[in-house]
């Protein structure tokens, strides 16, 4: 068990330290491909850049299952460089100005920068229009970045013992869970398509097209979810360390009740801790899978995560391990829906 856990953390660290904002997933995609190639039967990158890995083939009683975890993360795109080399930017996905201030960013071309802010009037709240990236350039001409360059937030992975912190735990924690489950599955009647989807943070775009391409009979998204366990935080039942969260609903879809029950039954059968998730705002690839073609029963296995969409997202190491066990168990057996 200890060995397994280390594998998971190694994979996770590799994933969170690779930049890959929506639309710029080439680095993270190739790292995942290298890591899983020997464990799958078929692997390809589709038209929009989703990495699709097929494991097993459909046997009697088996189903074609899509498991989607998104490889993209929130980030920034440069819109303008001024004469002094300061870069203005627009956000890719849900980035708050509050989490930007004083932040450091890493561009896909390797350049680095810090986020600075114009002087605010008294009582003025920071807005994205007031922020800029200082890449150390002294003028427009010596700037190493230009309009259209993409950056992710830069923070190292920190292991706090039971709790783990990094940028892009959303959704690399889920990618790590999917990868470890993929490796753990030895025998299954199901034909499983692990989709490492792109552009989730800008509207589930990769999963929409991947689901059409895979044409699954059942779908599971693996993603992070918010928690209600921090001081004066949102009112929500989910807490870190209390096990995988089985999504009932979020604002993008209502999980198919058969998928919810399937997950609950498997958690009980394995005697794993679990918690039910009702998320007021937020969406996952599950919504895209559910509404593809003529409709697919779909749900979402969630990893509780604090400080989502900040550069310091926190998850619980045991939750991750339990998610791996739950997901591998779900996929290894006949699916009775």
């Amino acid at each position: 068990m200890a060995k397994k856990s280390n594998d998971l953390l190694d994979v996770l660290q590799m994933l969170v330290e690779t930049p890959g904002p929506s639309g710029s997933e080439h680095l993270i995609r190739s790292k995942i491909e290298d890591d899983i190639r020997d464990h799958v039967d078929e692997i390809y990158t589709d038209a929009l850049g989703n990495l699709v890995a097929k494991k097993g083939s459909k046997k009697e009683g088996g189903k074609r299952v899509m498991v989607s975890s998104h490889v993209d993360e929130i980030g920034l795109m440069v819109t303008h460089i001024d004469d002094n080399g300061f870069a203005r930017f627009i956000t890719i996905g849900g980035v708050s100005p509050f989490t930007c201030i004083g932040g450091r960013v890493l561009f896909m071309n390797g350049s680095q920068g810090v986020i600075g802010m114009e002087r605010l009037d008294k009582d003025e709240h920071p807005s994205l229009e007031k922020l800029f990236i200082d890449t150390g350039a002294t003028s427009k001409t010596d700037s190493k970045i230009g309009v259209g360059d993409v950056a992710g937030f830069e923070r190292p992975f920190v292991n706090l013992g039971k709790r783990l912190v990094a940028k892009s735990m959303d959704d690399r924690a889920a990618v790590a869970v999917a990868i470890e489950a993929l490796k753990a599955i030895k025998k299954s009647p199901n034909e499983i398509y692990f989709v490492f989807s792109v552009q989730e943070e800008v509207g589930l775009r990769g999963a929409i097209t991947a689901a059409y391409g895979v044409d699954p009979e059942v779908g599971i998204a693996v993603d992070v979810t918010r928690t209600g366990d921090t001081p004066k935080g949102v009112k929500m039942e989910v807490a870190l360390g209390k096990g995988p969260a089985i999504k009932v609903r979020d604002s993008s879809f209502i999980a198919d009740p058969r998928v919810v029950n399937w997950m609950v039954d498997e958690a009980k059968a394995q005697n794993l801790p679990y918690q039910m998730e009702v998320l007021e705002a937020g969406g996952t690839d599950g919504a895209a899978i559910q509404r593809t073609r003529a409709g697919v029963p779909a749900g979402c296995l969630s990893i509780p995560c604090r400080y989502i969409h900040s550069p310091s997202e926190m998850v619980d190491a045991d939750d991750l391990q339990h998610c791996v066990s739950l997901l591998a168990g779900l996929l290894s057996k006949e699916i009775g829906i």
Partner: protein
Amino acid sequence: MARKVETSKKYSPKLGKKELNLLTRLSNALSVSGDEQEVREIVYEELKKFKDSMHTDAMGNVLVRREGTGNDRVRVMIAAHMDEVGMMLTKEDGDGLFEFVVIGGVDPRQLVGKPVIVGRSHIPGVIGAKAIHLTTKEEREQVLKVSSLRIDVGLGGSKLVEIGDRATFATSLAVLGPSLRGKALDDRLGVFNLIQLLKNAPENVDLLAAFTVQEELGLRGAKVAAYHFNPEIGIAMDSTPANDMPHFDGEVNPTHNTKLDGGPAIYLMDGATIGDRRLVKWLTETADAEKIPWQYRQPGRGGTDAGAIHKSRAGIPSVSVSVPQRYLHSPAGLVRIDDELNTLKLMHAALSRLDRSILNPQENK
């Protein structure tokens, strides 16, 4: 990536009498989202020679399949939307006055006092307001709400229009030196360009042309058109704001979006699409090679038909190219003729040098 094809050199678009006539008819047509019949008719008339490979689909998109003769042709869908923003009559108040709603993104501040045309017969009317003689200072500082405005077609005209009729601004296309001023240049320039591309299409591609409906209401026509064509590449040709007026304090405006005279605007990211990096590179490299001026449209909000196309079926790499335009979605937009012709030239040159190798997934970075 790109191979050299001479055809790109041979095509040099111009805006002669014939072309200006077509563009005038397109710009002056009344074709508000959901009733694009007038532009549809012009497209059919212009593309008579494609009549056997052209049809109108269930939503009203005009779809033209123009097959090339080369080997291993890439199937490229290009979309240009036929609809424009405007108004729709909702209730008759008597005395020739009609309540209306706006269709698509119209700034209510732009409505007051404008002459309009209503319905397929272009019945003239006006969006009137109380004369300045009778208004108070306070009234003049308020923006009049759409619900308090009426389209007045005069008593006689009221018999000639009916509830549900679309209305648009009564603006005629005008040439202002190096510029064009007109309504609905968003996206009649795209429609014009797509017609020209069909007539001059290079042989190395299958050009799947979609003259789409209801773009201004949420890319609705393009969604079904992309499903029908199932192309390998999707391109939206549209028009985008140029907010490039000189800044009052001499500073550079960091949110100009695009600039007039900057050439075709190539999209990296808008609210609906992240431009496929391979296609962005293809366009910028083509422009550089052909010495066509170009600019990035600043990454920002908004959307084009590419937003619908790229999410179709199992995914279609897509990108957008726009003609920069001042005063978009207003009674009169303004574009540079050179920007318009360079957009057409770029699209033709890019298609001419297109081959399937650019779709290599490893190059998607």
